[in-house]
């Protein structure tokens, strides 16, 4: 077999070298020990000798180019030697040497993009100066407070900017946080109307003069907003307010088993029937249904029975069997406030603001959930492979007759948002790439404007 002439590795961090000059030409004879070629590394120019006697042939290394270590750049043929015909590609790499590109990534020490990696490793935070810098604007937005003081303020729902700091630089410390504060907001207990067995918020405001626009007169419609598993009508607070402000009638029931509604349920299919009472009473001719998560199930049933103008499903459950089962089970009967807080964080997609409810609100929710009203429903929802609910046939059914749209968040950790891409062409899908399971909380204005398109 002819002897391979390779570009040798000579330095620890070497991945390539420049072939400077051939000292023997193609077809010329060489003797072992003869100077064969020169190569240039980061460190210096190096002379490489021939390792065998013979004729230099199949020279593929080009002077002036950069070649990877271990690459074959020529052959030395002893008398009578030849390469088998099928082993004579122009660009030969020895079978047992890994390609140089792979070596560069395999060998961290040989990273020629070391400067890039190093730069990435250098933390961008400066070493804090002894004098505070640019604190004026910062102070206006965020008061100085110790971590402990912040924690106490959060727990008691106190706005830090209402406190005076007694520590250095005006820093608020724990002693400055009043221990028992009267300023605890708590939840507004609105009295909900009773529709059959269901408590429901029924709101309609007078439209403001400024909302009217001659060319844009939108007739007031009726919106039925159905919340998801373990929530209640307050989860639509901002949307309720926005729609009502535009003069629409907004019906927001507490689903059976939830909130102020005393009727119980143990199966998703039983959610719709009691809600019918709301729609019967409302007798709306311009009805739009909006449902979140599990609310999609009664929403679809109702859409088959009532003349809806549009159906909007936000992060609907049941597009596929994929579901965060631990969330369902955990929230149906949380063992502690801390566990509930942890579960609620799964709903959010914002790592810097993961808590969607204040600690006081979490505690109230815990008190309500620990009554265990949802345990049976949770069991009914979860089967061997995941979610026991399949809304897809009903969804396509409704979509054949009515405008149906689905809103999903790309960072939803409860359902698999990608299932929305498998829905039929009749269904509009609005994808919020950065939203979690509550796109209407995280992007209220955008969701509102989507809803208004059907008006």
């Amino acid at each position, binding site marked *: 077999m002819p002897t391979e002439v390779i570009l040798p590795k000579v330095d620890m961090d070497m991945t390539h070298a420049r072939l400077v000059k051939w000292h023997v030409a193609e077809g010329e004879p060489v003797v072992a020990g003869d100077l064969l070629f020169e190569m240039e590394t980061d460190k210096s120019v190096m002379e490489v000798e021939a390792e065998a006697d013979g004729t230099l042939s199949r020279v593929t290394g080009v002077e002036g180019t950069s070649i990877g270590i271990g690459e074959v750049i020529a052959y030395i043929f002893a008398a009578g030697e030849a390469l088998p015909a099928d082993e004579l590609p122009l660009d030969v790499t020895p079978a047992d040497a890994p390609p140089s590109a792979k070596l560069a990534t395999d060998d961290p020490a040989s990273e020629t993009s070391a400067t890039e990696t190093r730069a990435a490793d250098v933390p961008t935070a400066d070493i804090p100066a002894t004098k505070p810098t640019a604190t004026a604007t910062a102070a206006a937005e965020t008061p100085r407070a*110790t*971590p*402990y*003081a*912040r*924690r106490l303020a959060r727990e008691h729902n106190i706005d830090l900017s209402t406190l005076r700091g*007694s*520590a*250095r630089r005006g*820093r608020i*410390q*724990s*002693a400055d946080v009043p221990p028992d504060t009267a300023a605890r907001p708590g939840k507004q207990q609105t009295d909900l109307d009773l529709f059959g067995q269901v408590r429901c918020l029924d709101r309609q405001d007078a439209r403001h003069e400024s909302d009217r626009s001659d060319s844009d007169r939108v007739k007031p419609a009726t919106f039925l907003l159905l919340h998801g598993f373990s929530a209640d009508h307050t989860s639509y607070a901002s949307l309720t307010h926005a729609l009502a402000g535009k003069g629409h009638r907004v019906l927001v029931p507490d689903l059976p088993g939830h909130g102020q509604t005393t009727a119980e349920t143990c199966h998703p299919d039983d959610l719709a029937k009691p809600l019918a009472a709301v729609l019967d009473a409302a007798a709306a001719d311009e009805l739009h249904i909006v449902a979140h998560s599990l609310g999609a199930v009664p929403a679809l049933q109702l859409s088959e029975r009532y003349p809806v103008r549009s159906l909007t499903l936000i992060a609907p459950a049941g597009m596929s069997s994929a579901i965060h089962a631990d969330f369902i089970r955990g929230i149906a009967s949380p063992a502690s406030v801390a566990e509930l807080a942890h579960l609620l964080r799964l709903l959010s997609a914002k790592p810097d603001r993961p808590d969607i409810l204040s600690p006081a609100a979490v505690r109230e929710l815990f008190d309500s959930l620990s009554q265990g009203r949802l345990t049976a429903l949770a069991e009914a929802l979860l089967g061997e492979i995941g979610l026991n609910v399949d809304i897809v046939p009903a969804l396509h059914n409704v979509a054949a007759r009515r405008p149906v749209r689905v809103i999903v968040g790309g960072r939803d950790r409860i359902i698999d948002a990608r299932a929305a891409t498998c829905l039929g062409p009749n269904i509009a899908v609005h994808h919020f790439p950065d939203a979690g399971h509550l796109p209407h909380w995280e992007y209220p204005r955008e969701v509102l404007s989507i809803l208004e398109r059907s008006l």
Partner: protein
Amino acid sequence: MSTVAELSYAEAIRDGFATAMTADERVVLLGEDIGVYGGAFQVTGDLVERFGDDRVIDTPISELGAAGVAIGAAVNGLRPVLEFQFSDFAALAMEQITNQAAKMRYMLGGAVSVPVVMRFPSGSGTGAAAQHSQSLEAWLGHVPGLKVVQPSTPYDAKGLLLAAIEDPDPVMMFEHKLLYKMRGNVPEGHYTVPIGKAEIRRRGSDATVVASAVMVHRALAAAERLAERGISLEVIDLRSVRPIDTDTIVESVCRTHRLLCVYEGVKTLGIGAEISARVAESEAFDFLDAPIARLGGAETPIPYNPRLEKAAVPQIEDIEKAVTGLVAGRL
């Protein structure tokens, strides 16, 4: 039932040696002037008479070589304890300590272990000046493969020594010179103090002080004075520089909300810096009600003049002042 005697810190170490050497033939001592002379700080005392000069071995003035000899002996089956006359001389042996002892096990993929102990009389306050007064535990604490301890009482000195001798890995023991004459209760016979476990020396609620070696005693003295002014100080004796008992410190700071680290080594890049970072990274961060504070050695070599020497390292008054400031929100 084991009896308890009142021994000095130095005597406690000697007692530890006697206990270990009686029980285990493999334990040998090496060091300069540890035989007939009894050791520069009279730690080894009469051990050479009791165990012979083939087990209490005087070395020439060859710190680097002696360290290598101790390491080779440990690799090959003995349990050697090497005494340095001053911690400052660790610098001469750094090659063997950090390149060999700390790394042999790892480089050989676990094929050997290095059960060597090295002891370093350490710290300032005796007027020995710059080259005989340093606190270098952070230098060695920085090296994976070593364990580093600093006993602050006679009880701990014997207990940590015995734990170190039994430990299969290299253990560096720093003994503060000012503590050699301190007296305390030491049980007879065998017992150990665990390496890697700090000890709460005094319980408190307003702030936590983490201190090591002689600083533990200064912190305790400061705590007494502060108690008279209504400030309740918790004092933790670090005991182990590598590994650091983060859990005990974090638990304490979660309760007291304030942390002061007090150490004799130079403040910059010292053990207090490491402790501060660990607490800031931990759940205790959310319970901090003041910035983490440190008192460490001044950024100078240790001076000869006695007043300057004192000013170069934290004293009781410094600790008192720092804690008062912490609690009052002045930091």
